[in-house]
């Protein structure tokens, strides 16, 4: 079954083309990574798929629903973790989960139970009643991760999920993401961290200048080829300056 279908998608901001002509299909249960340098169009793609942005042309469907025409239906069924958002400053994590539960019309008992589970899972128990503005970046990120998975969605869109997390929590989140995928759910992650994509994703689409320039399965790469090699082979030389010396000398 196809979870996400994109066909000839285009989006521009004035003279700047964010997505040129993107077509892509992601199956149920895939852990798909959108990898690319800054400005490649990853976040724009994500925003279109979650109904936060309308494309100029082309089609997209998430679980068979068009996000351009039914954005709230898509967001009801999906979990979203935007890169830049943090939990509301004047709410505590517990209240934010209550807020998420209220919007998603979840029973209060379920909200209470999942609040406990997520607090335990991410080490947030002691911070549940602290105002979000007084949490560290990493703690805020934990709250946002929990918020994205709180209703146990079939599809999750996550932007740089491991940003600001300490190594122990990173490892916990990675394990959770894998187990979530193993339970048959679809995860789409955007990142510019090649190692994260290689480690987590069953399939990686490399975006560059609004186009999908490569579509690879890291596990199927030859032993002498890494995902970084594929990435560098597919981005422009002006971006790819890795051969130039950058040392303290």
């Amino acid at each position, binding site marked *: 079954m196809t979870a996400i279908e994109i066909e000839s998608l285009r989006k521009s901001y004035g003279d700047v083309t964010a997505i040129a002509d993107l077509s892509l299909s992601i199956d149920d249960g895939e852990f798909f990574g959108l990898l690319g340098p800054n400005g490649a169009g990853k976040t724009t793609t994500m925003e279109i798929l979650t109904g936060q942005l309308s494309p100029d042309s082309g089609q997209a469907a998430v679980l068979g629903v068009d996000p351009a025409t039914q954005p709230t239906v898509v967001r009801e069924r999906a979990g979203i973790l935007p890169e830049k958002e943090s939990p509301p400053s004047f709410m505590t994590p517990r209240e934010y989960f209550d807020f*998420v539960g209220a919007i998603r019309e979840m029973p209060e008992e379920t909200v209470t139970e999942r609040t406990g589970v997520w607090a335990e899972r991410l080490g947030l128990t002691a911070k549940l*009643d602290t105002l979000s503005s*007084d949490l560290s970046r990493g703690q805020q990120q934990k709250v946002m991760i929990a918020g994205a998975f709180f209703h146990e969605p079939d599809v999750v869109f996550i932007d740089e999920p491991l940003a600001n997390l300490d190594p122990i929590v990173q490892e916990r989140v990675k394990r959770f993401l894998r187990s979530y995928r193993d339970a048959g759910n679809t995860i789409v992650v955007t990142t510019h961290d090649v190692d994260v994509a290689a480690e987590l994703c069953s399939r990686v689409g490399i975006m560059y200048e609004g186009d999908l320039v490569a579509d690879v399965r890291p596990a199927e790469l030859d032993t002498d080829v890494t995902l970084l090699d594929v990435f560098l082979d597919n981005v422009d030389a002006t971006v790819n300056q890795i051969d130039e010396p950058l040392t303290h000398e």
Partner: protein
Amino acid sequence: MSDARARRVFVEMLREEWRLHSRLFRGSHFSLFPVFICLLIGGAAKLLVVTGTEPETVFAGLHALVFVFGLHTGSIGFVGQDALRNLLGDVTLLVFSARTLPLSQNTLLGLFVIKDSVYYAVLFLLPMSLGTVLAVRGVGGPFSVAETVLLLWTTLALLFVLGMGTTIAALGLAGRGVPGLALLAVPLVAVGAALASSIDVVSYTPYGLFLAQTPLRAGTTVVSIFAVFLLGAVTFDATAPRPARTVKPTFRRWWRRIGDPVATKSLLDIHRSAGGFGKVLFSAAVLFGVTAALVDFAGQLTGVPPSTGISFGAILGLSGFTTYNWLTQSDDVDLYLSHPLSVRAVFAGKFRAFLLLGPLVGLAFYGPALAWRGGPVAEAFVGAVLLVGVACYIFGTTVYLTGLSPNEFLFDTPLFAVFGAAMVLPLVPVLTAGFAISPLSGPLLTALGGFGGVLGVVGVGLYRRSLLKWSERYQQV
């Protein structure tokens, strides 16, 4: 820090302030800001003098305004990061560079204060002084215009610096626990006792120096400024961590009563942010004070006692703008778009929060106004209808023009002009009737009440029309 490094940091801080304001005021518009300030303050001073206010009162009011401005400016770099973040996103100021660069925090703090003093003295206080003196010239005094501008500018700048220093010293003391708070209370009690004993404390401030340039007044001004900055330098620690605030879970309880998660969050934001609901009431209290002064003034001008109900009702309805402003301070639509909420639902939540708070805030001052000034019951009823109608009208107009960003009015002159016209057109006839006609006849009262209802309907209509506009806008940007 060497002189060269200090100079460099100072110049970069000035540049930072300029860029901050340029971004707030949309780039090149900001270069005209001093002219705007000169015209605005000059116009206001002229209006006050023409309508019978004594020039001394105008000067006293200007000094008070600048002192408050100084108090506020002293806080913005140190505790106002939340406010800046709401306007600009994440903001890091050079004054915090000691975290990452080998610079002394105290030196940075000193440079920050000097930078603010120079920046605001030149771009704000000088145009204010010029505008005011030009507006009230020819109304006495032994000095020429140039001398008076120079004197006024000097005393305003000194008062501004005193205000900044007072804030820094107060923040420093407040951060030192109970002993600091106790010490903070000492000057407050002393000033209170001096005032109670009829000692003219004001004479020893920069404003006193403006009134009479004596060595004693100059000395007390310099000593008071030196004292607050010394206290600030000793007690203020910009790097001190703020303790994390733990609160009781409230969302679920409020949500059960309010019934809408966005409305609940909006009200919780006001409750939890600095000042709580008190700041909403304070905004309305300012409007209440203005109305009281206007009513007195109109009564003297026309010789007719203004209608308490109509005048207070119509003007207090304008508090709807400040209330809506507070309701939208802590979020924007983007925050909600990662949840299954439509743009329409977000605005509906804001509308519900406004209905719960906006008219109530106006009525909280309208009741005391009636008790204080009295008036016929019919006028009181029609005034209440006008208050709710005007509040809904200003809400609908603001939402239609700016969505969840009423601050846009500050930065977009054409938009502000449209908003101003939309307010003036319906309110001028209402206020003319309220101020100049007494007693109000039955038919006129009926017409005014009906007009209040129409304004309310138009406001709700504008709000409804704005839903489509903002839904489309947020999908396309």
